[in-house]
């Protein structure tokens, strides 16, 4: 078993039942993601990329096929076991940030640690470190409504980061942001990947984001139709202030 293989999906199918009709969302998908990868899963809407993300993120389970996360077959685990895996091994970043309103940035970031059973000073320390890592060390007590869109997404990244997950899944993380903050967000992901070796998977239809990764997997109608490396990855954080 290759220790560098983080995710091993073999012949994954996902079929949704809409009443009596069965709608296949993914069909025969096999994919390997290695530790430290920075990649994008691309495809138009309806291509199955959301389903793909849900399965990778252990929010959903495949109808058939095998999904191994760090060598553990998670496709047959119970809801509570999946919750534990999401808590410890997976970080989510959503298009709409999904921060808790009326809750400070720090408390938002502490949330996964709460469910991990970490409390008190340790929780606070780790949440602060995560916020500092995304450059928000000075905004700990601000509420989401007091932060800009880019800052909110950075809080969300800190929240995804705080439990030191094996993989961060970012679902259209720049979709609700202007170009400049979008680039900053992509830059943060790149930096986390390059400097800390954190595995990052973007799920997007935006080729601009995809160009900032090292590998692009293309989905169409529930099948993988392309899987190629990016030859000249652009760096978002070096491009800051220059020509994007």
């Amino acid at each position, binding site marked *: 078993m290759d220790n560098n293989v983080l995710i091993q999906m073999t012949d994954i199918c996902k079929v949704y039942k809409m009443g009596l009709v069965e709608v296949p969302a993914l069909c025969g998908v096999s994919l390997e993601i290695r530790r430290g990868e920075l990649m994008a899963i691309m495809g138009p809407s309806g291509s199955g990329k959301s389903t793909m993300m*849900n399965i990778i*993120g252990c*929010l*959903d389970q495949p109808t058939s096929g095998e999904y191994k996360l760090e060598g553990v077959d998670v496709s047959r685990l119970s*809801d*509570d076991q999946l*919750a*534990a895996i*999401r*808590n*410890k091994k997976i970080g*989510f970043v*959503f298009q709409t940030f*999904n921060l*808790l*309103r*009326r*809750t400070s940035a720090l408390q938002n970031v502490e*949330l*996964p640690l*709460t*469910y*991990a*059973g970490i*409390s008190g000073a340790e929780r606070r320390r780790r949440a602060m470190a995560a916020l500092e890592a995304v450059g928000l060390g000075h905004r700990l007590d601000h509420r989401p409504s007091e932060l800009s869109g880019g800052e909110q997404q950075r809080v969300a990244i800190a*929240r995804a980061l705080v*439990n030191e997950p094996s993989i961060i899944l970012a679902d259209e993380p720049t979709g609700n942001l202007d170009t400049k903050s979008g680039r900053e967000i992509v830059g943060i992901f790149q930096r986390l990947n390059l400097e800390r070796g954190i595995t990052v998977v973007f799920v997007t239809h935006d080729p601009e984001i995809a160009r900032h990764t090292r590998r692009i997997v293309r989905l169409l109608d529930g099948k993988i139709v392309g899987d190629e490396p990016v030859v000249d990855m652009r760096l978002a954080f070096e491009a800051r202030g220059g020509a994007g």
Partner: protein
Amino acid sequence: MNLAESVKIALRSLSANKLRAALTMLGIIIGVAAVITLLSVGQGVQVLVQEQIQSIGSNLLFVVPGNLSAQSSGNLRSTMATSMANSLTYGDAKAIADPQRVPDVQAVAVESFMNTTVVYRDRGLRTSVSGTTVNYPQVRNHKVAEGTFFSEEDFNGGSRVAVLGKSAADALFPDGYAVGQTIKIKGISFRVIGVFASKGGTGFGGVDDSVFVPLTTFHTKLTQRRSATGDYVVSAIYAQAVSENRMEAAMEQIAQVLRDRHDILYESDDDFTVINQKDILNIFGEITSILTIFLGAIAAISLLVGGIGIMNIMLVSVTERTREIGLRKAVGARRRDVLWQFLIEAMVLSLAGGFVGIALGAVGSQLVGRLSGSLTPVITASTILLATGFSAAVGLFFGIYPASRAAALNPIDALRYE
């Protein structure tokens, strides 16, 4: 996630919508306030009854005009109507006092009431004036604190002397020194010769507010109420049985004598009622139980409505916070974490309502006590515990459904919910 943390989260999300939380709690507040008032007043009544019974004295039987027991015990109006009947006389009392005919009664006192105004100089007091016999303090177990009660000579001579209850004395003579003063009842002067010690409470034949004069004086100077044979009409006869276990026999003997004297053939035609302490206790018990049922119904309905209100708001809250639930699940909340979160929120709502209700109930019962005058409501730790338990149970019961709905949400759908 520990309890303190869950409670903090619940408080935070409730404080997000304070007005809504307050309105939701209202049902619980009213319900618990009713429970507290009910229990504390109920306990106060019990204490009062015990005090009354003790103050009445042991082995005491009451004979009152009218038939209380036969047709309608508990119908107060008929009781009031019949008690106006002039069916008991001083002669009846003397017959009961005859040891040949009523061997199980050792002493008999009578009392005639009237409501009138008693005047001392420029001070007036609307109160009850009683004509009574010399042995009244002994039979009723009342103690004279200052001066003396009237004597045999006062009684036989129809002296214009009066003994005051403690409250009456305080009202007429705020500075004390009642004994030796002259008061006017219906324009006739009476010399105050004594003041009773305070008994507390009012109830049947309460002594504190009353003014006592000799029966003879009462019927010659203050009223002309006579029976057909010219005898004094009395409001009540008090008979002291020789001992506790001869009470039943004494009651029977008294009834027999009175039936003879009143030419009554059948028990159902009695124009008098002999009451012992147990009967009085029963009357109190009846009033208390009506009160209990009434307040209990309010409490139950209010708690039910309050609980439904909580359920309703929690369901709204679950829907409003679908995305939050989805996110919590995505970052690792298990089913039971979400279940507990909403359950604790419901319980915090109902418990907070419960505590406000306890405070309100305490105020309410004090108010009832103030209004009734003689009643001192008793709030015990167990009452508070019961109310707290009740409101927690309501929160738990009505919170379970919304909480389990939240816990059952699929995180994918929840995250996508608009």
